[in-house]
């Protein structure tokens, strides 16, 4: 490489890239001086062209260097340190720089690839198509992931998947898979995330608020029909209530139909009726485990007032 030529005759290389550029420039200057000596027109012209090419290269390298410095990478510093500490041949400095830039780009791209899982939808190319991974979460809690192996053929088809059988996958794929795969995948995301969310709420109710339940929580695998008997105070003498929650919209984590009744009581006085209606409203507007958290908190406040 011609760059190497300038360094060997100089012997010991001075610190780093700037010095390198200096040497390059000196060489240009020398060759330009030659230009000013009387020559034939043709020789002069070709010398000029070569000169311009060399200057262009130098300019491009300087531009890159300035850009790098201004970006604050401190590449120059790194190279200077590296060159002085390791046994790196100075005539490989330019190659390393390019390599370094590529490596940095590679690190960045690798990171970006990993970041796609945060969109909730990620995937990898396979030999026959693509393997898609759908992640679910509810209120910031990262929950199960589901995968789907798609074979890219005419027609596009699903080879294997871990989507539960009660999610209407066939229906969705018949509607959208061929025409708009993005829409298909994101709709499936909606269904799976909603299912995960409903399941999370039901699990939390069973595990954290068992004391409030007067019997087992009845639930279906899709977690869109829940039925349970509960009390507002776990230890108190309050009347048990029966709740039935139906989530007709499978893309939602809040129920569409809520029925709350006082166990074994048909006719209610106005105040009881108000209570009953407000309970219904609570279940309709707040996630299930939050409703019970508010019951628990009310109970705590009551306890506190009793103590004081």
């Amino acid at each position, binding site marked *: 490489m011609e760059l190497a030529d300038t360094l060997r005759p100089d012997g010991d290389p001075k610190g780093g890239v700037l010095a390198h550029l200096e040497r390059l420039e000196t060489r240009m200057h020398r060759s330009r001086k030659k230009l000013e000596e009387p020559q034939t027109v043709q020789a002069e012209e070709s010398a000029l062209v070569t000169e311009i090419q060399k200057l262009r290269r130098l300019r491009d390298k300087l531009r890159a260097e*300035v850009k790098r410095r201004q970006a*604050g990478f401190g590449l120059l510093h790194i190279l200077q340190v590296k060159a002085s500490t390791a046994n790196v041949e100075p005539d490989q400095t330019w190659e390393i720089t390019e390599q370094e830039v590529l*490596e940095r780009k590679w690190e960045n791209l690798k990171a970006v690839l990993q970041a796609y899982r945060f969109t909730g939808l990620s995937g990898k190319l396979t030999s026959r198509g693509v393997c898609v991974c759908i992640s679910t979460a509810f209120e*910031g*809690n990262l929950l199960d992931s589901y995968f789907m192996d798609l074979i890219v053929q005419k027609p596009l088809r699903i080879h294997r998947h871990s989507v539960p059988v009660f999610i209407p996958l066939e229906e969705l794929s018949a509607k959208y898979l061929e025409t708009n795969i993005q829409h298909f995948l994101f709709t499936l995301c909606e269904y799976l995330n909603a299912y995960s969310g409903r399941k999370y709420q039901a699990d939390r109710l069973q595990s954290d608020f068992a004391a409030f339940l007067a019997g087992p929580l009845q639930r279906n695998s899709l977690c869109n029909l829940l039925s349970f008997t509960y009390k507002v105070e776990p230890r108190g003498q309050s009347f048990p209530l029966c709740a039935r929650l139906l989530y007709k919209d499978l893309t939602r984590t809040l129920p569409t139909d809520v029925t709350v009744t006082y166990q074994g009581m048909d006719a209610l006085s106005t105040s009881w009726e108000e209570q009953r209606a407000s309970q219904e409203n609570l279940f309709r507007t707040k996630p299930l485990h939050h409703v019970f958290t508010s019951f628990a908190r009310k109970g705590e406040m009551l306890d506190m007032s009793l103590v004081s």
Partner: protein
Amino acid sequence: MDARRVELSALQAEIAALRRACEETPAPAENATRGQKSFQEIYQSDSEGWESSKDLRSHLGHLESEILFLSTLTGIKIRNYSKKTKDLTSTEMTEKSIKKVLQRHRLSGNCHMITFQLEFQILEIQNKKSLSSVITDLNIIMEPTEYSELSEFVSRAEERRDLFMFFRSLRFFVEWCEYRKRTFKHFKEKYPEAVHLAEGAASSCMGVRSASQPGFEVVIVWRIQIDDEGKVLPKLDLLTQVPQRVLELDKNRVIETAPLGFRNLLGVLGIEATLESLIKLLCTEEHARSRH
């Protein structure tokens, strides 16, 4: 010859300026140490890896195509991502074999014309039984901010720390916006006289006027709303602009009931067919009148 000499002196001047710039912006010390560390890491981890730039280039190409594939699949283009991890495990926790780690993520990119910048934290707690990962903080910055429907949605997503819902709804929202723009453009091209896009095809309003009856105009307002649970729904309304005296003549209250009729029609025919029939209605009146 002269042109070349001009280029020559220009190059020389530029080189001199660049050299000055080089000297004026020395590499800052902290960046150097930080960069140095990662440089070491790169060398240490991949010293066997990169035989040559060619090797690296082909791997880069492969990575780029994978990212292109993912951005096509999701409709979301991520441009930058970085992560910092902080180990919060105390000695007490280690004794009980519990590990606690806080991750700080920074992510930026765009979904069509909307660019976003996210910063979020994930707390990971690993005990003998299970691993729990919870998003403990979420901050979202979005541009352009002219989509007012989005600012409320963004605060809700931040409040709920619902990262996936953010991306899902964003993508559906953008899909609807694109569809609305295409539909408006289509009608403008088909009925250039009647259809009037005052704020362009990307806005939420499309005006339809009858050329023979100036002052008589209907405006279709097509909003795209994101509800509490992140569901993206179109909401169309019809506004009528008619001169007062016409209203007075309207004994059958046709104009008054038009918005309701419009909504009913939407339910039956869908968006495109409803708009088409509305425009045709106004246009045919035109034709009818011109025949006289």
